[in-house]
């Protein structure tokens, strides 16, 4: 078989989503951002809403998300993405509006904007990358840094008397009346990637159907910040992050409604 014969549409088993352009990514090898970006692009394409999607990018490693996905983007100030998204969605109710935020952005400097947007029930989707560290600024302590975990600003390990405790903001989000879907996922295996794709699709669907706020946390790796190889980082995440940040749905009003209707 020649190369030309192999490259036939009939033989296609995988292709990059069209929404992803060819700009070289600045993300480190082994970083979860690239996978989540791809999933978002795939879901937007699947849903056929490319022309009416507005993404809000954060401050942090994903500040340049707008360089990779060819949708309309607004780049927010640190932590304020949900405030921007609230206004965009209320002024454009038919649009798919999502924010993409890291742990420092969402669970530290933007805690107020996050909680109040979720609690208002803004019809937006929030994609939350939790890698327990500040990647962009070079590996400082995050609100979600685990106890004992070493970073450049807790070089002897996080300890409660000095640094307080890792914040489970997703658990808080699930308590809020305004949220309709709160889930915690990961992208370290093919099965996990498929579950995260479904979660993102559900969150985006909720946004388009005005069901309230959705939060999809993706427990992620930062191999550079954690100073590990990509495979070590995945292993470390499963061993240390998942016990404190257990995966699965924390809240799903749609399933609840459906099962109530079936009874």
């Amino acid at each position, binding site marked *: 078989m020649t190369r030309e014969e192999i490259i036939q549409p009939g033989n296609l088993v995988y292709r990059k989503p069209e929404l992803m352009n060819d700009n070289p990514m600045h993300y480190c090898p082994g970083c979860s951002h690239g996978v989540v970006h791809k999933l978002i692009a795939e879901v937007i394409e699947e849903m056929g809403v490319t022309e009416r999607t*507005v993404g809000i990018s954060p401050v942090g490693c994903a500040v340049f998300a707008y360089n990779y996905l060819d949708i309309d*983007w607004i780049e927010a100030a640190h932590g*304020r993405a949900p405030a921007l998204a609230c*206004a*965009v969605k209320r002024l454009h109710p038919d649009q798919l509006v999502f924010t993409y935020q890291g742990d420092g952005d969402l669970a530290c400097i933007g805690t107020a904007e996050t909680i109040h947007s979720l609690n208002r029930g803004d019809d937006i989707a929030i994609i939350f990358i939790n890698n327990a560290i500040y990647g962009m600024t070079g590996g400082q302590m995050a609100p979600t840094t685990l106890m004992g975990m070493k970073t450049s600003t807790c070089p002897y390990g996080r300890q409660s008397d000095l640094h307080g405790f890792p914040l489970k903001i997703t658990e808080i989000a699930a308590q809020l009346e305004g949220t309709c879907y709160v889930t915690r996922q990961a992208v370290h295996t093919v099965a996990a990637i498929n579950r995260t794709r479904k979660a993102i699709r559900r969150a985006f669907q909720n946004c388009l159907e005005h069901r309230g706020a959705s939060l999809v946390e993706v427990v992620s790796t930062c191999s550079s910040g954690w100073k590990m190889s990509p495979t070590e980082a995945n292993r470390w995440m499963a061993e240390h992050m998942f016990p404190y940040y257990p995966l699965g749905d924390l809240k799903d009003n749609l399933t609840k409604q459906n099962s109530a209707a079936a009874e």
Partner: protein
Amino acid sequence: MTENEVVLMKGNEAIAHAAIRCGCDGYFGYPITPQSEILETLALEKPWETTGMVVVQAESELASINMVYGGGATGKRVMTSSSSPGVALMQEGITYMAGAEIPGVIVNVQRGGPGLGTIQPSQGDYFQSTRGGGNGDYNVIVLAPASVQEMADFMDLAFQLAFRYRTPAIILSDGIIGQMMEKVVLPPYKPRRTDEEVARECPWAATGRRGRRNNILTSLSLDPGFMERHNEHLQQKYRVIRETEVRYEELLTDDAEYLIVAFGSAARISQKAIELLRHEGVRVGMLRPITLWPFPTPRIAELARRMKGILCAEINSGQMLDDVRLAVEGACPVALHGRMGGMVPTPEEIAAALREKLIKG
């Protein structure tokens, strides 16, 4: 209310009514004295049921301004209002808007500072408003209303300027004008722009791609060459604004030997001071800057050449004074009468200051 009907209302209420009437798409604000009537009036009027205008009580001024950033980035006419400490919090969003060239209107009904200060009126945010206020090299357009009528009239003007130049615009009012009731004729109703009109007028906006290339609105670049060009582009825009958008009003300057420069409520008080002084035979006039940025520098420079002295009357420690001195360039003596901390000067005080500091001195 019918068209052209004269009504009696507070400056804050006039802002709210004018916003609904001028096709504003969204208001995002947080309560603070002395401007809470703006959000209260909007809540009472329920414009979302009539014009479709969105009204949100945000969790903070930080959130409010970032909602304005988001809404403005989609090409919508959006606004917020606050008073001095709240506007201090908003500076983050304002500099992002300036950097990303996002239009939007901020109403500041000033109170005394610094810090929590007082709820009484002040003009202490002149520097904050006219010097940019946040980080980086930028300016925002600043309109200073001196009456309830101007509160109503400047709403649409502020939106027009903000969109013409893709910049935030501030209406710099104060607790006197916000709280006092005066006769006002509200502007006629103008429909909100349709999504098609927004797409046509704001091809840069993040409205969803709609068949075009994707739009990215950001104030960030890590390439210093690009960033310098972007800053030069902003400075060029500010030069055009300085050349074309200066607004001011003159009173009795034709035969004047002395000039009072005052804006906003200080100009209203100075008007009475001029009456008192003219009654005594002092030939005094007034220049009232309507745009504080861009400042009417050329006109003040021109007038200064034939004045015996200029008095700045301000409700602060002398902030506009700097701009007046820069304009006068030593051509005549420049003096100040200012009060702070929520105290408001009387016409008699201003008249006495002019006599003592410029005529006797």
